[in-house]
């Protein structure tokens, strides 16, 4: 209330005793235009060639002029406020710009590679100098490996979450919580190295798809635990108590009341966990090898995945003539991977939104 009263005189353009002098509303726009004009002037006067320097000069001029003007008219507190606001807006722009650039850049580079053949053929027999080839083998590998990882990780993750929410008390639960957090921070390459030393060195096995799936499962479990835990905590206590009051044992309460209530949330967290690991490359370099032909069997022989196909094609680019072909395929595979991950994420979030009313 007080703000509207205090602002009213200013809106009508009348000076007021209650409010100190303020800059006009159009001040930032005017200063922005002035800064751009000045920067362009400097650019032509000094003969700069690039636009980057001019852009940053304009930005710096904007900050300095606006803050200085504000300081002289409004005083130091308002000037600080304007400076902070400008910087916070700038932070936002500084982060959103590269992130938008990344997505648009990968779309621009990747879309030309897309064709029906690209999605229905493998790279079998396609050398770096030849056209054609596709990511079918890698798509199969990624889907199989991620599916195996999910089959391993999700039950462990959800059961651990159940333990922490429904049973967890005492030192053991505290240790589990702590190590779930620590596990979240385990670098993917370390998970890969562990499976490599354990499975491939320990048993003398050749690289195969499911080995990569185990590493991905290790990365997936903590994500799954964390998000499932949040979902289970959302289940109202009243529901559990009502079930207990009817004499239903605890495990049936969890199975028949808690889990169904949290189901859509649990699906969301599962999809997010899957999306989190689908793009992992590092452990697969050590564990799955790379085959340019189709290998449907994740338990024997090298198996291609989308990230590994990108890695392989990037490694094969050499010279200028051949690099175009391999690079185009690498970008095509990378774009497919990004689309896969983004679709998983969007579906998960839509499900979460659908699930929301139920938790109230």
């Amino acid at each position, binding site marked *: 209330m007080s703000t509207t009263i205090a602002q009213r005189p200013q809106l009508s353009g009348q000076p007021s005793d209650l409010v100190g002098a303020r800059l006009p509303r159009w001040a930032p726009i005017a200063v922005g235009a002035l800064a751009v004009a000045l920067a362009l002037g400097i650019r032509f006067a000094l003969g700069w060639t690039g636009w980057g*320097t001019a852009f940053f000069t304009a930005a710096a001029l904007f900050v300095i002029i606006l803050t200085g003007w504000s300081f002289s008219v409004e005083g130091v507190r308002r000037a600080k406020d304007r400076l902070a606001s400008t910087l*916070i807006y700038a932070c*936002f722009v500084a982060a959103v710009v590269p992130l938008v650039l990344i997505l648009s850049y990968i779309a621009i580079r990747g879309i030309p590679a897309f064709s029906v053949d690209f999605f229905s053929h493998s790279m079998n027999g396609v050398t770096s100098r030849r056209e054609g080839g596709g990511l079918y083998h890698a798509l199969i590998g990624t889907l199989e490996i991620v599916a195996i990882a999910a089959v391993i990780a999700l039950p462990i993750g959800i059961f651990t979450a159940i333990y922490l929410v429904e049973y967890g008390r005492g030192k*053991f639960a505290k240790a589990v919580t702590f190590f779930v957090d620590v596990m979240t921070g385990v670098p993917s390459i370390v*998970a890969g190295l562990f499976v490599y*030393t354990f499975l491939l060195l320990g048993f003398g096995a050749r690289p195969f798809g499911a080995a990569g799936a185990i590493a991905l499962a*290790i990365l997936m479990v903590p994500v799954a635990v964390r998000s499932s835990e949040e979902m289970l905590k959302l289940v109202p206590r009243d529901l559990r108590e009502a079930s*207990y009051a009817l004499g239903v044992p*605890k495990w049936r309460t969890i199975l028949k009341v808690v889990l169904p209530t949290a189901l859509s949330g649990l699906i969301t967290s599962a999809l997010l966990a899957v999306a989190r690991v689908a793009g992992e490359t*590092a452990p697969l370099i050590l564990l799955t090898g790379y085959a340019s032909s189709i290998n449907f069997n994740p338990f024997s022989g090298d198996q291609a995945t989308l990230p590994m196909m990108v890695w392989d094609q990037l490694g094969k680019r050499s010279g200028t003539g051949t690099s175009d072909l391999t690079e185009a395929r690498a970008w095509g595979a990378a774009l497919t991977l990004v689309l896969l991950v983004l679709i998983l994420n969007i579906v998960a979030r839509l499900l979460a939104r659908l699930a929301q009313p139920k938790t109230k």
Partner: protein
Amino acid sequence: MSTDGDNTRRNLRVGSDPDAALERAAAEHGTAATEAAASRLAERAAHHESATDTLTPPPADGDRHADTGATGGGTGISGQSVRLGDRVFKGLAAGSGGILLVVMAAIAIFLVWKSIPAFTDNEGNLFTTQSWNPQGTPPIFGVAALLFGTLVSAVIAMVIGVPIAIGIALFISIYARRRAATALGAIVDLLAAVPSLVFGMWGLYFLIPNTQGFQKWLNDYFGWIPLFNNATATTAAQYGKSLLIAGIVLAIMIIPIVSAVCREVFLQTPRETIDAAWALGATRWEMIRTAVLPFGRAGMISASMLGLGRALGETIAVALVLNSGFRINWHLTEPGGDTFASTIALKFGEAGGNPVAVAALVLAGLFLFVITLIVNSIARMIIARRKEFTA
């Protein structure tokens, strides 16, 4: 009633075995006041009564449960099977948690065990040698350059990324209108899911060619600071795969994560504190400085630590934008630089079947594991302390 409940709860905490504590609580009060274990308590309480009351034989106790515990289905649930089902289910749940602990322990054990040859067969000094030739005869390698590259690239990422991430979090949580904030938050969350490989490719194909001018500019005008000096390049085209670029790519990668956590923390700032600041006539920045930032300090620190952990362990993006050199080079704009993670990925093919070479890479993994473990533990401790503080 409430004191009964409190006593029960205290007993639950005091007792080492929750079942025993439950029984004791039930025995003392004969009430089913505990929220979480209401059914079990009731069961134990009933048991207690039936045990003292000799008129009711134990089998009848089971029958009574079969009646009251009917959850549909033809077969009744006797007290025995209730306890068995609970025990099995609890065992499964606790076992899953146990698997996590086993896996963490196994990671540590295997990394230490399999890196032993790297300690014993190394002819160089592990900590000071600036080269990486574990498959040579004699094998000579050291982690000095890797440690340097890992820490420096992560520090650059933090210096650039964390302030920007906090700025974004403030923008989303305080400056933006609610609907815009929801959409922006969703976008930032989506970007956190973009695979690191894609960031690396973008860095390699877009960022490096487009920042050569910037790196040259840094050298031309700030070359008197050794960090920005590049003695090897004369034209802009010779700038490129430097630690500085790796740091920038990492910064872009950690921004979504750090800002997502910070945003959550800022949104939890108590409404009263914010209103109090407004009521005292604070400007928006003063409100942020006096209300939002102090409240979110621990959250910001732990978010930064999480970002640091990710930056330290990032593999592919760094491997793509760095030129391997295996020497400590403080000139950040000069090409070169290695991190633990990128070395493992890049040198794995060369290592082949050579046991010492593999052991050396496992050793690099062990270092990385320990460093990220320490960073994450510190982050968790800060969060835990804040919880204590607010509670």
